[in-house]
Each structure stands twice: as structure tokens, then as C-alpha cells.
């Protein structure tokens, strides 16, 4: 059953998908930083308030993925920021996250060499989001 986009239920299903992925487990060996995703508000798309997703990722495990405020997400070691509709494009495989970052559609904050070293892991995280059935607020 579909869950509300970027809700606590969505975060739980996303976490389950990450922990089910052998590809992620392998690619993220050595990763030990928190990642924050900032989903910026788009009131005209029925997403009135920005949200933050705080991902506690450690050595290939998703220890916790929680929905909170944008500021909580911004406090993480690595932060990726984009408006709601961009994240929706990523989750629907309409926008490749790597391309999005190179085009500035997804804004990245954090140590670049580290992110680049874990490109495969971040691509698999994106894949995991596409496996979560989502009810989009603007549909």
C-alpha cells in the first residue's frame, strides 16, 4: 500500500529497503556519516512545509531514517537539498541523482571526494527510494 511521501511511514519503508539491499551493504562499507535530505516546500504542489530526512548510515547499515525539520537535516555531515518536485522526479526515476547533482538540480554540501568515493552506494540509495510505493500529495 502506498504511503504519504516523506512521512514517517515512508522513512520506515525506505529504511527497510536500504537494509534489504546487498548492493548497498557492499558499496557502503566504510561509510560512517549522517546524511540529511532537505525537501523544500512547494505549496503550489500541496507540499506546504519543508521537511528534513535524517539518515543515520553506518558501514552499509541504515541504523535509522527519520523525518524531521529541514534544520535537523542541514546539521548532518552531508546534505542534499532540492525542492519537493525534484525529489519526486528522483524517486520516479525521471531524474538521475548523479546528473541532478552535476546540473545543480540537487545541491550537495559535504566533502566531495568522500561522496564521489561512494557514488555506487548513493546510486543504490536512490534505487531504494524508487521501490517504496508512494502517494504523492500533488496527484
Amino acid at each position, binding site marked *: 500500500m502506498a504511503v504519504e511521501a516523506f512521512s514517517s511511514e515512508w522513512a520506515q519503508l525506505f529504511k527497510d529497503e536500504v537494509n534489504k539491499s546487498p548492493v548497498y551493504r557492499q558499496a557502503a562499507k*566504510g561509510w*560512517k*556519516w549522517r546524511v540529511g535530505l532537505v525537501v523544500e516546500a512547494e505549496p503550489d504542489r500541496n507540499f506546504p512545509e519543508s521537511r528534513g530526512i535524517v539518515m543515520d548510515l*553506518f*558501514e552499509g547499515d541504515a*541504523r535509522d531514517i527519520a523525518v524531521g525539520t529541514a534544520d535537523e537535516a542541514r546539521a548532518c*555531515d552531508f546534505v542534499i537539498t532540492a525542492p519537493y518536485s525534484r525529489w519526486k522526479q528522483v524517486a520516479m526515476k525521471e531524474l*538521475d541523482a*548523479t*546528473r541532478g*547533482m*552535476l*546540473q*545543480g*538540480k540537487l*545541491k*550537495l554540501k*559535504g*566533502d*566531495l*571526494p*568522500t561522496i*564521489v*568515493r561512494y*557514488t555506487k552506494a548513493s546510486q543504490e540509495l536512490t534505487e531504494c527510494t524508487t521501490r517504496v510505493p508512494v502517494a504523492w500529495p500533488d496527484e
Partner: protein
Amino acid sequence: MHDQGAGRLARRVSPVEYADGDDASAFSQMLGGLIEANVESRREKRADFERLRARVGVFVTDIDEGVTLDFQDGHLVVHNGLQPGRDLTIRADAGTVMQLSSVNIGFAGMPNYLDSTGREVVAKMLRGKLKIEGLLGNLTTLNQVTRLFSVQGSADQEPAPDRSSP
């Protein structure tokens, strides 16, 4: 009169400059930022950077965007788009450009094209998914640039404080 303290107090000058200033594209900033971080964290990359004089273009085919990296013996000017006078031009899709940054550096500082990442890069070249123009006569430059791009081997320079397992 020269103020001897001024040198100590002077602001750190970045080795990377953006020709387009605030209008530098996200791709320019990403490549420039990556090279700057590599150069500042690894002595051997700094040595490559100090002696590299070349204009290198990188064009990402699936976003239709390019940059020109103008290496000037210890200073890099990053231009949006492909500028004239390039010694080398690398053309590949976004994933492959990121993969180039993951090429391991092996014996004597040579990029390792024999391990799995290196073999994938070579396979993409053979399939025409990665094109390098100007390779003839610029192999040393390509190796230097590959070392500057590569993020491998810098695990001792991790950015954030270590987090211990619970």
C-alpha cells in the same frame, strides 16, 4: 613598509578560480571543488598540480554540459563550457565521469586500469562511451589529470569525526 605579520594573517588563497564567478555552473563547481579538495589533502596530488600546465575539457554527454580546466602550474581556472585551445578533451556520460574519479592509483602513481574499476573504464573507452580527444602526445597529462580527479587512496583524509559503533 612591509608588515611581517601580514603574511601570517593573510587569507588563504584558493588554488582554484572560477572564470565565470558566481555564474559558475554546478558542474564547474563540482569538478573544481573535487580537485581543490584532493590537492589540499594529498601531498602527491599537490605535486602533480604544481607542475601541470594544460587545458583539459570535460564534456558530460547526457547533460550536454562541459567545463574547461585550465591548469597553470599550481593554479586552476575553471571555465563553464568547452573553451578553445584544449590539449585534451574527455567526453562521457555523468556516471562515467564520476567513475573516472574512482580510478585507483597504483604502482609509481600510474592509474590502475587492471582492477575492476579500471577495467570498466577501459571497456567504456573501447565501446566508445568514453572518448578522449588529444590523447596522442598527452598521455602524461592524462595520467596527471586522472590522479588529480581520483579520490581513491585518500581515506586518511576523511572529513567528519569518526563515529563509533553503538
